[in-house]
């Protein structure tokens, strides 16, 4: 329990100085794009935009995920994950399906 609290605390501190531009580089470098697409809208893996998780929760999930490959401290630091989180937070949401004529015609 203490370990989880400590982890969340470190991650929260790291998120405060997060750099979205650096996060974008890390997102590609560590192959996050492979499953989540280049701008986080999903693919083989889950949709990450809009990023609804708080930074510490995001970090905790990536450390011990249920589905995806884990990225542990040895591989990516809390600060790096905070940067990735900041990048995902910076990506605009997709337009709603109802606003897209091509998709509305499919209903």
């Amino acid at each position, binding site marked *: 329990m203490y370990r989880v609290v400590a982890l969340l605390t470190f991650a929260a501190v790291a998120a405060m100085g997060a750099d979205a531009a650096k996060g974008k580089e890390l997102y590609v470098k560590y192959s996050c794009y492979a499953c989540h697409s280049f701008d986080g809208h999903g693919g083989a893996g889950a949709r990450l935009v809009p990023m609804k998780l708080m930074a510490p929760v995001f970090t905790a999930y990536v450390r011990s995920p249920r589905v995806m490959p884990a990225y*542990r401290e040895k591989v990516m630091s809390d600060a790096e994950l905070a940067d990735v989180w900041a990048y995902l937070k910076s990506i605009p949401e997709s337009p709603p399906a109802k606003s897209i004529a091509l998709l509305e015609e499919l*209903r």
Partner: protein
Amino acid sequence: MNRRGFLKGTAAGAAALAADVPAGRAQQTAENRGQNGSAPVPSAETLERDAGGREAPTPSQIIEHPSSDFMVDVLKSLDLEYLGSNPGSTFESLHESLINYGGNTMPEFLTCCHEESAVAMAHGYAKIEGKPMMALLHGTVGLQHAAMAIYNAYADRVPVYMVVGNHEDAAVRRPGVEWYHSAQDLAAMVRDFVKWDDRPESLQHFADSAVRAYKIAMTPPMGPVLIVANHELQGRPNTQTNLRIPRLTPTAPPQGDSASVAQSARLLVAAERPLIIAQRAARTPNGVKLLVELAETLQAPVENQERMNFPSHHPLAGSGGAGYQPDVTLCLEVNDISTTARMARARGGKVINISSLGLYLKSNIQDFGRYADVDIDMGADAEATLPALIEECKRLITPDRRRAMEQRGEKLAAAHKAVREQSIEQASFGWDSSPISLARLSAELWPLIKNEDWSLVSWQGFISNWPNRLWKFDKHHQYIGGQGAGGMGYGAPAAVGAALANRKRGRLSINIQTDGDLNYAPGVLWTAAHHRVPLLTIMHNNRGYHMEVMFVEQQASLHNRGAERAHIGTKLWDPEIDYAKMAQAYGMYGEGPISDPKDLAPALKRGIERVKKGEPALIDVVTQPR
């Protein structure tokens, strides 16, 4: 002059010509020959080796009626429309007979740049046409080139008719390449994944075996067959007057026995949550109609796998929605049902299997999947068995059961609608992204083809099944499924083969082509251009072997190492391949790369216009990974 002398003379003549030609032409020749302009004249030793020490025929050796003419008569009796081939000397006599004696029709010779392309084209052709195309292969080297495509067709249970040349008689085999291109038992190298092969010793033997091979290829479970055509037999004068081409009598597909059909119908009619899983069930358009009839009779959902078995927009299409736990599962021509059977057993459900796959198995290659415990197992062709099963189910349905089924049908229709709505919502994710999302690619394409007689001639597995989630599939020819054995390099040639079969019907063939697959043997683009095969190829250009990127990434995580090197050995991005230029180089229309989604629809329209004129076109679209 013998052939060796002729070739030596040609070499000397070529050197003289290089010196005598006018300046402009000489320059062109030099550019064509190499950077420093020196035209390498082959040495006498090289010429002798390349000619295989062969003598040119003298007038006294003229053979007016070669045995290969009779082989053509036999092949013509089999109604083979096309043959794909990369030329080879082991079938030179047959080649000449096909194009001259046979008039290059039925079958028409299609020039292929790789034997894998020839066989994979035949694979795609058969999935539209419902009958085999021929592939004519060179001894040993050509057959080895073809091996991967043969295995795909075998695993996909698709008929392909193959003839391979061989120098059987070592006593008359000439020195050099003829020995490299000969084998004692040529078919042995592919026998593990060829349904039947033979090595005819005489022309009558050839006729009997050629007809038998066709018959075997077309009997479920269908598969590729191989006839070894002896080079010496091909070229020998045919003096026989009593040769006979046997009549082809197709073998009726095996049908499930009446007791098993009746028992299955009882289980299905009594089921509260039946599920039908169809993989390679619909061999023909009638198979789709029969499956719709069975599903509507039972009000059972149909999980469509691999091929076009069931209309995508039918209210019963799908797995029944969240929480639908089938108590009876009917599997129709499903290759590996072990997981389905295990899960059914865990919840006390029953599994009925109708499949011809178990009627023809081999030991070495493990394509048959894990052993599955099932409750009823019919070694039978599913499509042939469906009429009896439908009739028996209808006979057993009481008014009470009908009411219960109708109520179930309403719930299933609602579940189907919910899944469709969810797909449309999900298609909006990353709508404006660059690289372009595969959902957007599919959505942009649909309004351009929906009023045409269209046919998707590529696999959807690498594009997250977006066409099936968004488009309305309701005809058998609208989708041909995938590789069979997961062997890459199938996609481009199979699409060309399927488009060839679609051509005479005026269909618009669409190939959403993965970049990794195209690079195995891109010369098939030239074949499509040369033979005027109308086909729209849209590159799913994610610049890599993407599945492997994800696999390496998973391994890196498992080993607690970063995925920052997962691109090594998996990506195709330095330099980036220009597929539009590649298409243009092969003589077809090419456009792209398109990476802004706003540019996509106009480019697709231009491509479709070209295809409607009867030619192939390629639009390179830079896409998201999946």
